[in-house]
Each structure stands twice: as structure tokens, then as C-alpha cells.
């Protein structure tokens, strides 16, 4: 017991000195990492469409098109070029901010993405905030009263929601909040330009559907982290020093318990950003998910690559935000 603990105390004493160099290195490393990720995923995006049956040309021209017409169109778009060459051409344009033109709709990819991103972003951010707003108080309260009635009920609910696919939750919500009560519209979208209230009115049910799908994971993780934090010596110290329960939970327990929650929430954010396909199509929201859903079967390669770039960049940005949040929450992560 003794030497081991002393060893641990010693190791935690050791702080790096050369911070500037370290930080530079980590920024450089992250940028390099970003580039590598982008190259890999966009290349994979190009290659994947090669692996799917059918060609963009045959889809554009329809089943009646002659082979000559298809060959001509392929040549026009460069789809007869080898994969690598095609990719390099795309990359060259992409670097200048030109992600090409959608094969399907003939609109510039960048324009379409910028049009779709706010919808998905709003959906994702609100869903995440709502699920955290449900999960955090519930998890902390349940953990502080482990095995109480509240804990058992909420944990049961969480397991329930976890095992129900999001589209089932969505359909249920539509029925209850839309069809039966008519409190909320069952589908559709109102942009922020038509007023915040109108916007929220439309976005609430899809956000709730996503949030209910996400909250169980957050809840379960935070609950178990809070339970283990509650067993920490410093919580006991605070308790025996006469601090009230609520104060201890807020001041001493929540923050050190939330590290893995942040990681998981960030992963969820990335996943929702590209993965709210089900909810977007159920509620007919003009976001990235429904865009991807159309673009992939249509082999709209420029659009698919554009989505991939957008999602990959977001992922990397989120990771940076997560790192920053860690430093904010945990002083041990700060490079003084």
C-alpha cells in the first residue's frame, strides 16, 4: 500500500517544463492528423462509389440510355479515368474551395452543403443539449441515491430507450405530440428566418426523438462515473467536513465525473451530424442526412465527397473542442 501510493504521488508531481515546444508540436501534429484523415476518407469516398453497382452516367441518363451516350457522359465527367487520377483532380479543385457540381441537381456542392449544414447543425446541437439536460441531473440524482426507486425507474427507462430504435421513438412522438394532440407539426421545417418560435415549433419533436435516443448512453455513463466518484476519498472528506449533499454533488462530484461523458458526447455529435438520416427523413428536414441519403444511391460522387469532407473536418474540430474542454474541466490537463 505504501510504496505504490507514494510512487503514484511522485509521478503526478512530474510536470513538463517545455510547454511552448510541446504545444507547437501538438498543433502541428493535429494539423497533420487532420490532413491525413481528410485524404483517407475522401479517397475512400471516391473508391466506395466505384465499388457500388451502376455508374453515375447510367443513373443520370436512365435505363434507356445507349452505351455510347453513357460512355460520352462518363468521359465528360472524367469517370472513365483511373481512380487515383480522378481523385487527384478532385483534390486539386477541393484545395481551391471548389468541391465541384452535384451530378444530380447541377448545383455547386459547396452551396448545397452550406444550405443543408445549418439544419443539421441546429438539430444536432439542440438534440445534444437536450439529451445532456435530461441525462445530467437524472444521472447525478440517481447515482446519489443508488438503487432507490428513482434510480431504478430512470435506469429502466434508459435501458428501454436504448433498446428502441430512434425511428420507433420518432413515430411514437409523432403520434403523441403531433397526430393525437396536434401540439406540434408532424413533419417539415421552418428556417430561423421565419422566426425563432416557429423554428423551434418545428424542430422540437425531431430534436426530442434524437435526444431520447442519445440520453440513455449519457445517463448510464455519467451515473456509473458519479457512483465511482462518490466513492472517492475527497467526497468522503467533504462529507465528513459537514458539506451538504447537494453542494458536494455540484461542486465536487459532477466535474470529475464528466470526462468520459464529454468524449462520448463528442462522438455522438459527430455521429448525429452525418447520421440523423432516419430522423431527417421521417420529419422531412432538409439536412445533411437526407442529402446523403439521396446522393449515395444516385452515385452523386462530388456531393458524397463534399459531405465526407464536411463531416471529417467537423470531427477533427470536435476533437479539438473536446481537448479544450478537458483542459477547462481538469486542471491537470492544462499545460501551465
Amino acid at each position, binding site marked *: 500500500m505504501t510504496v505504490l501510493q507514494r510512487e503514484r*504521488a511522485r509521478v503526478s508531481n512530474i510536470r513538463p517544463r517545455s510547454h511552448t515546444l510541446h504545444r507547437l508540436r501538438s498543433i502541428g501534429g493535429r494539423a497533420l492528423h487532420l490532413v491525413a484523415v481528410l485524404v483517407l476518407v475522401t479517397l475512400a469516398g471516391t473508391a466506395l462509389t466505384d465499388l457500388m453497382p451502376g455508374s453515375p452516367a447510367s443513373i443520370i441518363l436512365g435505363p434507356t440510355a445507349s452505351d455510347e451516350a453513357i460512355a460520352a457522359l462518363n468521359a465528360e465527367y472524367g469517370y472513365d479515368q483511373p481512380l487515383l487520377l480522378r481523385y487527384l483532380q478532385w483534390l486539386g479543385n477541393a484545395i481551391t474551395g471548389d468541391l465541384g457540381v452535384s451530378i444530380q441537381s447541377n448545383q455547386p456542392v459547396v452551396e448545397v452543403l452550406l444550405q443543408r449544414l445549418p439544419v443539421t447543425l441546429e438539430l444536432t446541437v439542440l438534440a445534444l443539449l437536450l439529451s445532456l439536460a435530461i441525462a445530467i441531473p437524472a444521472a447525478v440524482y440517481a447515482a446519489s441515491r443508488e438503487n432507490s426507486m428513482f434510480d431504478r425507474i430512470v435506469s429502466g427507462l434508459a435501458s428501454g430507450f436504448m433498446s428502441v430504435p430512434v425511428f420507433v421513438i420518432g413515430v411514437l412522438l409523432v403520434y403523441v405530440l403531433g397526430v393525437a394532440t396536434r401540439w406540434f407539426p408532424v413533419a417539415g421545417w421552418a428556417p430561423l428566418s421565419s422566426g425563432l418560435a416557429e423554428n423551434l415549433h418545428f424542430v422540437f419533436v425531431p430534436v426530442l426523438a434524437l435526444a431520447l435516443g442519445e440520453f440513455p448512453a449519457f445517463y448510464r455513463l455519467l451515473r456509473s462515473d458519479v457512483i465511482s466518484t462518490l466513492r472517492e476519498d475527497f467526497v468522503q472528506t467533504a462529507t465528513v467536513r459537514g458539506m451538504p449533499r447537494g*453542494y458536494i454533488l455540484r*461542486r465536487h462530484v459532477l466535474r470529475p465525473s464528466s470526462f468520459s461523458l464529454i468524449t462520448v458526447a463528442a462522438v455522438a455529435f459527430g455521429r448525429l451530424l452525418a447520421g440523423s438520416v432516419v430522423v431527417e427523413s421521417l420529419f422531412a428536414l432538409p439536412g445533411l442526412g437526407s442529402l446523403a441519403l439521396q446522393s449515395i444511391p444516385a452515385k452523386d460522387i462530388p456531393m458524397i465527397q463534399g459531405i465526407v469532407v464536411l463531416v471529417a473536418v467537423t470531427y477533427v474540430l470536435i476533437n479539438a473542442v473536446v481537448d479544450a474542454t478537458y483542459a477547462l474541466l481538469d486542471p491537470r490537463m492544462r499545460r501551465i
Partner: protein
Amino acid sequence: MSDVLLEVTGARCEIPTARGDVIALGGVDLTVRRGEIVGLVGESGSGKSTLAKLIVGAKAPGARISGRVVLDGEDLESVKPETARGIRGRRIGIVFQDPMMALNPVVPIGRQITEAAVHNRGITREQARAEAVELLSQVGIPDAASRLRHYPHQFSGGLRQRVTIAMALACDPDLLIADEATTALDVTVQRQILDLLSRLALERSLAMIMVSHDLSVIAGRTHTTAVMYGGIIVESGPTAAVFDAPQHPYTKALLEAIPRIDAPPHSRLTAIPGNPPDLSRLGTGCPFAARCANAQPDCLPVVPPVTHPVADRTLRCYHPVDSFADARKAP
């Protein structure tokens, strides 16, 4: 005002586990007078930490606790739990073994020191901060004012323990409990902290319970010593008397098992056979009987009652050491 600060009577603690109830405390009485430094010594599983936690009102989840804790004439079991918690927070300070674990890693130490004073004594944050600076200098942390903002990881092990001592003192308690407070520290730092605790006790007229597995730590720094084994106090009394003339066979054997820094090299240690007891499989009688050189058949049926062989001393043994004939002489 009574001379007695803390009186624990009949303290029992049973913790249910998959393997059966662990009897962590099997009926313990302990008295601490004002300004008195009590050493609570024992091996792992002896119940010394459980007793310390029981006094401060902390317990393992699911543990069943009974017995009375009277602090300065007030029975802490007869008041509302919140009231008892407030009294304890205010009047008892505790320092744990591992300062890294006892401090919240993500809260600045200033806040951790002041929060209890703000809450329990109703003083303002500013007052509490001023007091904290004073406390930190008292416990030997240089540049105290600027260090309030620092986080635990920015301190060395020794300074960290000083911070937890400052925390324990923030409500100006009457009783300080040091639960293995120097066990995780290096020997030179241990010396610093022990010196600090001794000094603080003297300066502030603190009563103190020093809990340790190490007889050497207790020896020179306590007024009275209570030796625990298998969840009971087997022997207690003035420290010098207990060390010089141990009456319980366990105390005697323990003293002989310690390697002494002044013994010649390769001098053979008197080992105690067997292993410390498994608290979930305690028999009915004296917990030490299985390892005891003096054990007789009558040790087994019933735990020996508390006796007072001489004034100031307690003993729970049917066949004590003939301590006065065997008394060790001071060098």
C-alpha cells in the same frame, strides 16, 4: 466544562458482504480528553480506520453501526443527522492517508479549504480566504496567498498533506483525526508532517487521534495508546506504560516483531506466527487466540471483557503478559 472531549461507547460496525458479515468493530470504548493525543495502532483489518470514520460520521455503504458517540457532552446519535453532520464538520477535522485522493483534483485548494468554514461557521468567503492564507502559512506552505488558486496536482506530496491539514483546521476544530496521515509519505517528509502535527496540537490545544499501523510513529508523539486487533481495543493506556510494559501478548509480540534501527545486523526478529484475522470468519473468543503464545482453552468461548489492571489502563485478555516482571527498560 468536562475534561472529556470525546467518548465512544460500545461502538460496533458490521458490514454485510457476499462472504458473510464482516465485523469491523466488535464493541469499542474510547475516551479522548481535551488536548490529549491518542495513538490508535493496529494492523490491517484491526478496525482502527473504521473507528476513526465512525467518529467522523462516515461509513461504508450498507454498514450497520451501533454505539454512542458523545462529543463535548452532546450525543451525536440523538440529534438529527444534519445537525450531527454540522457539529462534526465544525468540531472534528480529519486528515486521510493519501492527500492526492483526499483532495478534489479539479477544485482549487483555496475553495476546498474555505468551503467548510463558509458553510459551517457562516463567515464570508473573504474572511474564510484570509483565514486560509493564515492557515496555509501555519502549516508551512510558503507564499500562501498566491497558492490558493492552485490545484492539488501543483503541490508535492508533502505540501499536499499540509493542505489537507489546513483543510482539517479550517473550522478550528477541537479534535483532529490523523488517519494514517504520514503512511504515504517518504520518511523525511513524514518527519516534517509529524513535527507539524505535534506543534499544531500544542499551539491550538487540539485533541488528536493518530491512527497508524506503525508503532514507531505512535511511540514518541502520543499521550495514550490504544492497540487494536480484530475489531476490538485489546489494550490501552499511557503510551510509555504500554510500550514499556505491554500486558497484552499481542502488543508484546508486535513490539518484538518490529525491526529496530539500533539492533545489530542480522539479529533475528520475533515473528508472530500466522496471519491477521479474517474479520468475516471471526470466532467467538479472543481474536488473537489463534496466534497467541499464551492462549489457553478458555480464550476461545467468549471475548475477554475490558479490565483495568492498573489505573489508566485497559486490557482485554484472560492470560496477560507478566508485564512487570518482563518490563523493558528504557535505554
